[in-house]
């Protein structure tokens, strides 16, 4: 198939960016979206032009490195699919595709489609962990965890930290990301000792990083490549209220 791409080009942080058009011919339906961009970049390189900068690593939908907004949707048209797992069979000959970076003030553009997501790491550093030093642990089976809780924890923990939730949210809120980490740790008995402080500190960190407030649009859930449920947000809200009252 033949495609016309409109790609966001921006030389460096703070620079003026713009959409630039590129035609790509002979795209196979078996290619992944990123392989299609590879083909474009190889051509640009051969012509001595600056290739499009985009991030990726595992190309298996698990590292959360890739991410771009495709025709207005984070990670593109397929539900529960990262852009590295999106295949060209989801597109048609003659399609025009607009490709932009995540847009959020807490995720400044570094170059083209690359943004700086270190704000996520800083939220985790404020409490997204269980404080246990190496060597302190009792036997793994000493703390039985009901299967439903373990499964719930796993549902939340499957977040890959890609930032699609932020990109999808009209307020650029990081609520789903934060709620998923809290939902994971609070579904397990091990996570209970630090519950209050964790919720409080992580929510504060989220505000400090410049993410917006959550006003329940739930675009995040629809965009999440791992299908993380917005119910975790409701849980976080309840816990935050309780903590603030204490």
């Amino acid at each position, binding site marked *: 198939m033949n495609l016309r791409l409109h790609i966001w080009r921006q*030389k460096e942080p703070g620079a003026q960016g713009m959409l630039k058009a590129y035609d790509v011919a002979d795209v196979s339906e078996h290619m992944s979206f990123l392989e299609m961009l590879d083909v474009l970049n190889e051509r640009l390189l051969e012509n001595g032009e600056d290739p499009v900068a985009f991030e990726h690593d595992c190309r298996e939908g698990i590292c959360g490195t890739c991410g771009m907004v495709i025709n207005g949707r984070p990670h593109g048209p*397929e539900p529960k699919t990262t852009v590295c797992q999106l295949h060209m069979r989801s597109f048609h000959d003659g399609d025009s595709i607009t490709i932009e970076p995540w847009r959020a003030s807490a995720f400044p553009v570094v170059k083209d489609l690359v943004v700086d997501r*270190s704000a996520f790491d800083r939220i*985790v550093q404020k409490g997204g*962990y*269980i404080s246990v030093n190496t060597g302190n*642990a009792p036997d793994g*089976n000493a703390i039985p965890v009901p299967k439903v809780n373990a499964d719930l924890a796993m549902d939340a923990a499957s977040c890959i930290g890609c930032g699609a939730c932020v990109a999808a949210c009209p307020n650029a809120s990081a609520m789903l990301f934060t709620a998923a980490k809290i939902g994971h740790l609070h*579904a397990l008995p091990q996570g209970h000792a630090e519950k209050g402080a964790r919720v409080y500190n992580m929510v504060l960190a989220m505000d400090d990083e410049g993410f917006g407030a959550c006003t329940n649009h739930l675009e995040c859930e629809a965009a999440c490549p791992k299908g993380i449920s917005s119910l975790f947000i409701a849980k976080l809200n309840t816990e935050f209220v309780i903590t603030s009252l204490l």
Partner: protein
Amino acid sequence: MIMELSGRTPLGSLTDKWEKHKNELKLVNPSNKRKFSVIVVGTGLAGSSAAATLAELGYNVTAITYNDSPRRAHSIAAQGGINAAKNYQNDGDSVWRLFYDTIKGGDFRAREANVYRLAQVSGNIIDQCVAQGVPFAREYGGYLANRSFGGAQVSRTFYARGQTGQQLLLGAYQALSRQVGLGKVNLLTKKEMMDVVVVDGRAHGVVIRDLVDGKIESLTADAVLLCTGGYSNVFYLSTNAKACNVTAAYRAYKRGALFANPCFTQIHPTCIPVSGDYQSKLTLMSESLRNDGRIWVPKERGDTRLPNLIPEIERDYYLERKYPSFGNLSPRDIASRAAKEVCDDGRGVGPGGKGVYLDFADAISRLGRKVIEDRYGNLFEMYQRITGEDPYSVPMRIYPAVHYTMGGLWVDYNLMSNVNGLFVLGEANFSDHGANRLGASALMQGLADGYFIIPYTVGGYLASTGPGTHTEAVRNKAAEAVQHSEEKITRLLAINGKRTPTSFHRELGKIMWDKCGMARNEQGLQSALVEIPQLRDEFWNNLRVPGTGEELNQSLEHASRVADFLEFAELMVRDALHRKESCGGHFREEFQTEDGEAKRNDNDFTYVAAWEYNGNNAPLMHKEHLHFENVELATRSYK
């Protein structure tokens, strides 16, 4: 001069060595720990666990990764699980059995004492991860669940759906994040290590390049830990993340660290076959699928009927036929070669005949679709997303792909290389898997190294050497190393030829896959030794990298890594050429039994080949002879 290397394994009985050694290692006084600085390069399982634990102990830690977050390290992609000798299933597992399976699985080319220690600490890893909140799979009673993996007859693999690596890495990442939040770890992301600073045989720091603004600088410390992963991407197509590369290990080699058994690479039997020449990487389908999937090809050559139309009696379940006691759970090297053999025989399926079926029909009719969905749902979805085929109704098509590298920098029992103060952990070292790694044991090794071994051995080293980085000689050497890295970047940008870094990488990968891949022979290896230097020459004369070195320049990053692969590949081939035996993942066609199995030569090759960089001359090979005092060198049979 050729040396006989010693692994410096402590004396005493196998079962007591580690305990005894821990008691003998010197300790750093708690209030002195903050006077020592440690650089940890890499934040995968090995690096994150080491950095977090050393910081908990009180050392000054700097953690470095080229990813934009520690959580994105390649470890995140591990699917199937992690082994531990817990014997929760009461099926006869023990530390000894895990040790024995790993030594045997490695085709008797690993150091006994290291492997035994690995099995000993394996249980602690599970405990630690559970305490951190890793959501391992559980049974209805709330206790931990297990599954089986290749090369073992007990069920000792712990897992978190098909995302075990992700959950273990997030556990380690969270422990690391806690230390970053407490101000005890200085975390540097988007920084690539370009060189090691070595003065008088001791490591004093590293050179790093900022991938966003291109700035190159040196950092010094009292010890340096390389936790930089494996080099499978020398083959271009592999199951590894795209950025995985050999630069850190290779640069350490060029500064004097020995590179051990570089030719020991693992080809994983169950990957999604290549679909076209635009292919950028290969996707693994977890080995755990072999618990329930049956592998087969048609009995007749060139049978192009749809799989569902081929009757049972016309199918060859070749693993079950050849290896009745392990069947579909035969170890990786064996299963991969068997797949190659049937495909070479013209019985492969799918485009180009490069594939075999992995069929779940029996399991689905025996257990029901729901059970299979629970066990492998996300893997089935992934398969469907990539191929557009539904594995619940049509068998998967799979083919072997490069997956893991057993070779790596040589380390002693303390995980220290021959360069003092330069420690190597995880996949980057050579230590535990011999010539073939068993499934679910890389995660175990990375975390064993980082959580439970290095905190002791680094302490022992620092206590006996004391701080020592702030000398004139170190400053000079660091400045020189920075300049050296700057020159490499300038040179890459100045060539201004016609070909892209990817085109060279692909071509190198093809040479390596054809000549130094699943099967190797003298002639092929000799010709690779001619082709690689030619390609390298062309690279340095005809490469094209646009842009500058002072901005985010992904082509430049890639070119710099390919440059090192182009040198390293030659070392791998040399190693493969010299090892005139077949063992584990290293299959030399000249050395096989009548029924096509690997033929080891214990008389001449029971050693680790550790290569020393020797400038423009051929590298020198040193040997560490392996002494087996507790197991008998048996012919590895899975029949």
